[in-house]
């Protein structure tokens, strides 16, 4: 959907909705350890925010992520997950054993930090994959 559609009402309403969707996505990501939610859901919410702004404002959207950037971001997200696992290996633990980082923190805090790391990876991957598919579906001309 490369050109904008809708009227003033649609544009204005979505402009109010999108920041809250993004904020809720970040909340679901950060609070996902102790409440329902987590990386997959947060990724879907953030992707919906970008897709909505793309639908309303067209190609020159404020929160736009191009398809190629989205693919790179998805790769980075997947890499981040594996990287946390390799990092824990380097610190002397098992693969994805979170509680052994060398910083002076409580074990539960280290653990939460590790889980936050992998959740950010999952979020990036899901968000970027949805955006990349949307971009490929709505692409007009070949590259």
């Amino acid at each position, binding site marked *: 959907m490369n050109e904008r559609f809708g009227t003033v009402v649609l544009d204005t309403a979505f402009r109010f909705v999108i920041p809250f969707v993004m904020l809720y996505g970040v909340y679901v990501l950060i609070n996902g350890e102790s409440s329902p939610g987590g990386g997959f859901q947060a990724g879907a919410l953030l992707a919906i925010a970008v897709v909505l702004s793309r639908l309303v404002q067209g190609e020159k959207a404020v929160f736009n992520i191009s398809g190629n950037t989205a693919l790179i971001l998805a790769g980075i997200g997947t890499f981040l997950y594996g990287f946390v696992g390799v990092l824990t290996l380097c610190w002397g633990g098992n693969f994805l054993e979170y509680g052994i980082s060398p910083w002076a923190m409580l074990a539960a805090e280290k653990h939460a930090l590790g889980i936050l790391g*992998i959740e950010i990876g999952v979020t990036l991957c899901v968000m970027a994959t949805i955006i990349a598919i949307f971009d490929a579906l709505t692409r007009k001309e070949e590259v």
Partner: protein
Amino acid sequence: MKALRMGALFVLLLMAEVMFISAGALPQLYDPQSAAATHVADRYIADAVEETGSPNFVTAVLADYRGYDTLGETTVIFTAGLATVLLLRVSKGSASKREGDSAAEEEQV
């Protein structure tokens, strides 16, 4: 052709029979004595907070006990998205090329 159809029907009936037999042998829903509820679920419920330190044992299962599983899920999503994007771009590119070809042919005509 007819033999092929009869063979396909036979295989379908066989699979339906297997499904009915195995559906009869499934445990009751919410049965606390079923195999799925007695294997590791008790350990997760009892020890997840002490073993992993996370306040929510869904997170403990997702990110800790089944961390490899979640890594695999993420990789599957990434790979599926990549394949979808590649297929869509290739098909759209070839479609527009075909349109271009026909336009060129029309110009020649």
